[in-house]
């Protein structure tokens, strides 16, 4: 850790913050100190604890330990109302706007400062006043649902300013913005600081950090990893703090000569559920007998990529070729018939029917085929035998094919998914966040099975936010950032630092 420069006046001082969710500890005693007239970056990967910490500051969560002081005074913040009253405002990642209402209505909602009757004019005038002061342009009478996301964000900012916030917290603000909109945002943020406001930026993107911030706090796995002054540090240093950790033993892998492509994606483009661009011009290839790891902080298009390959999402452009045919517009049934297996991101809602038994889950998708059904009738014996066999083969504990899957532990649930997907000798496996929430034993089990498939000659598209998983399993590593594949490296070339930089959007430094 580099030495920190003592700040002038501490506006926000969070010390030793602890937060638990059930038996999971999200924050292990985190410190955050923010001074006046400062733009402060709160940096870290997924799961580092950034949003949790800020939700505590904003009164959405109660800390289980630690203290908060605002402008030198102890402060207990019980709700967003409290936080707002103390001058703290939050611009959420998922906008808290009411789409059919106008900009002005959204800004004043909850604090209308008017008699029972609202005057459209008066509202618009008030909003325009604010806009002029902070150089934020957006039509007060426009309906929020008609505005592009960049302008919607401005409404969020105006909301916060209207309530007299002195401290503004931005949660991953550029996630849905175009490059131009990002620059416009930076201008606004600088104006805010010049007008005397304090800004905290929650982000994982180095570009933002270096473009506008003054100081940085890096979090890693719920702990402080470093406090830095932006001018005095470098992308490499930050990347190392963000990402560095004790790696599990990297598995010794037998080099397998990859042969022939099983998946070829060209020019793939798609939109996210919110209508923003999720994928832009993706080109990638997965060969037989290789694992291509797609790394990146969650929310950069990885989920959409997996969904497009499977047929769960319609791409807006591009091709996905498997076995010589373009399956970009096929439904999941067709795609799977070509030998594609899928281990989805959320095993509980996408991978399994929790209320079904283990045996029933093993045949999900295969229920119409012999031996599981003949002449329109299910063959219970065949299903049960299959269930017993796979439960044993894939080490489901307890190996009871009649158990309801909802009662299994996460690791065993994932084994059921694997058993179903891997037992049919697929040509391509698309696997997304396979070890999320799993203990070490289950994690290693999953890794072994994936490596087994690779040795068998299967191609594996592995999407994961866990770097050590990517590095342990992949032959080649591609990094996604803001919907693009910013680089594809051979495993040997993918150092931690390089990957950290790429994941944070700093392609040039990484590939130098």
């Amino acid at each position, binding site marked *: 850790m580099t030495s920190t420069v003592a700040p002038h006046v501490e506006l926000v001082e969070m010390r030793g913050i602890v937060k638990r969710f059930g038996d999971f500890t999200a924050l292990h005693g985190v410190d955050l100190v923010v001074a006046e007239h400062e733009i402060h970056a709160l940096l870290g990967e997924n799961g580092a604890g950034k949003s949790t910490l800020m939700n505590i500051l904003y009164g*959405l969560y*109660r800390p289980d330990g630690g203290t908060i002081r605002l402008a030198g005074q102890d402060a207990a913040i019980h709700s*967003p109302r409290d936080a707002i009253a103390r001058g703290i405002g939050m611009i959420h990642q998922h906008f808290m706007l009411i789409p059919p*209402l106008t900009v002005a209505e959204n800004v004043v*909602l909850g604090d209308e400062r008017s008699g*029972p009757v609202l005057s459209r004019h008066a509202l618009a005038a008030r909003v325009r006043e604010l806009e002029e002061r902070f150089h934020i342009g957006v039509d007060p009478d426009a309906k929020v649902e008609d505005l592009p996301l960049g302008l919607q964000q401005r409404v969020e900012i105006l*909301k916060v300013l209207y309530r007299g916030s002195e401290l503004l917290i931005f949660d991953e603000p550029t996630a849905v913005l175009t490059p131009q909109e990002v620059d416009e945002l930076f201008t606004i943020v600088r104006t805010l600081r010049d007008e005397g406001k304090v800004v905290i930026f929650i982000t994982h993107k180095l570009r933002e950090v270096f473009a506008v911030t003054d100081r940085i706090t890096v979090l890693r796995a719920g702990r402080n990893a470093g406090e830095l002054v932006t001018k005095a540090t470098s992308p490499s240093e930050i990347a190392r703090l963000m990402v560095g950790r004790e790696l599990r033993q990297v598995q010794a892998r037998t080099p397998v000569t990859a042969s022939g492509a099983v998946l070829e994606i060209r020019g793939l483009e798609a939109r996210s559920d919110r209508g923003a661009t999720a994928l832009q011009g993706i080109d990638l290839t997965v060969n037989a007998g290789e694992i291509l790891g797609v790394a990146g902080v969650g929310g950069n298009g990885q989920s959409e990529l997996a969904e497009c390959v499977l047929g769960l999402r319609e791409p807006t452009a591009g091709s996905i070729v498997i076995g010589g045919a373009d399956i970009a517009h096929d439904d999941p049934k067709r795609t799977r018939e070509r030998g594609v297996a899928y281990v989805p991101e959320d095993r509980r809602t996408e991978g399994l029917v929790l209320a079904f038994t283990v045996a029933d889950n093993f045949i999900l998708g295969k229920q119409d085929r012999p031996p599981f059904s003949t002449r329109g009738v299910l063959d219970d014996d065949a299903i049960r035998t299959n269930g017993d066999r796979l439960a044993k083969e894939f080490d489901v504990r307890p190996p009871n094919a009649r158990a309801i899957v909802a009662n299994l532990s996460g690791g065993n649930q994932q084994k059921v998914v694997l058993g179903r997907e891997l037992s049919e000798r697929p040509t391509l496996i698309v696997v997304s966040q396979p070890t999320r929430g799993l203990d070490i034993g289950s994690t290693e089990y999953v890794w072994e099975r994936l490596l087994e498939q690779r040795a068998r000659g299967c191609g594996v598209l592995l999407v994961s936010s866990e770097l050590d998983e990517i590095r342990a399993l992949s032959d080649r590593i591609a990094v996604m950032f803001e919907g693009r594949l910013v680089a594809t490296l051979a495993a040997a070339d993918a150092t931690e630092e390089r990957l950290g930089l790429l994941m944070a959007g700093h392609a040039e430094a990484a590939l130098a």
Partner: protein
Amino acid sequence: MTLEMLIGASVFAATLRLAAPIALAALGGVTTERSGVTNIALEGSMLVGCFFGVVAADRAHNVWIGLAIAILAGVLLAGLHAYAAIALRADQIVSGMALNILALGLTTYLDYQMYGTTGTPADLPVLPDVQLGFLKGVPYVGDAIGSQNLMVWTMGVLVVLLQLSLFRTVAGLRLRAVGEHPRAAETVGIDVRRIRYAAVLASGALAALGGAYLSLGVAHSFTDGMTGGRGFIGLAAMIFGRWTPVGALAASLIFGYGNALSTSLQGASIGDVKVPVQLLGTLPYILTILAVAGFVGRSRPPAADGLPYETEGHA
């Protein structure tokens, strides 16, 4: 079939008369659904308003007390639904249906217990018509609106009031916010639950007004199940009217007109073919289906409508 049968003054008058209860129920629907709660028990609130209005008017020999009690009954029934939907976060359709069945069973049961087979008294105090004497001689208009019931005029006033409130007052703004995005409303400090309770209770009052009009204003008596689905037509009018008071009124007028036609065209024929008046009854429902399916312009409910809301686990 003559022109008189289609657009005569009496048809116009009948349209208003028939549309009023539907519109009142529809206004109730707009209020509750705009706050995000689905209340299909409007039919039930209407029916209890219908019945208890008569009972109270009878016992107190005063129609205004009857009206007040009717509203109270409707509010109480809606209150049960509000509790189930908001506090218990129960399934709003099941709760609404249970209450409709309860209302029907209850009113029929009590009707039997209290009035046996003889029925409600013939000398019931009634809601007065508003006689517009100065229109007496005016052709068409005089017959059309010259002696509509007080309730019809009340309904008109309520439409205007609600339309203005919904879109031009702070309360209306907050109501709409709560129905579209309760989480966002909560983050700016709005009490989602309180607003929803108020909205559901208000819907019960409005529907009950419609019911009281039916028994105390039109039929001057109570018969079992006399609302006959008008609460549901009101919901259809709300949907067809795109969840606005004025739209609901327009839809109610269309539906009321169809209803009026089925009487005025009784026995009429076009050439040799008899007009199928019974099919006119399907009009509200078919139109609503077309509207919801997007064939007649976009009809979109408030985004959070029908979804139980969990308040954020606050600090």
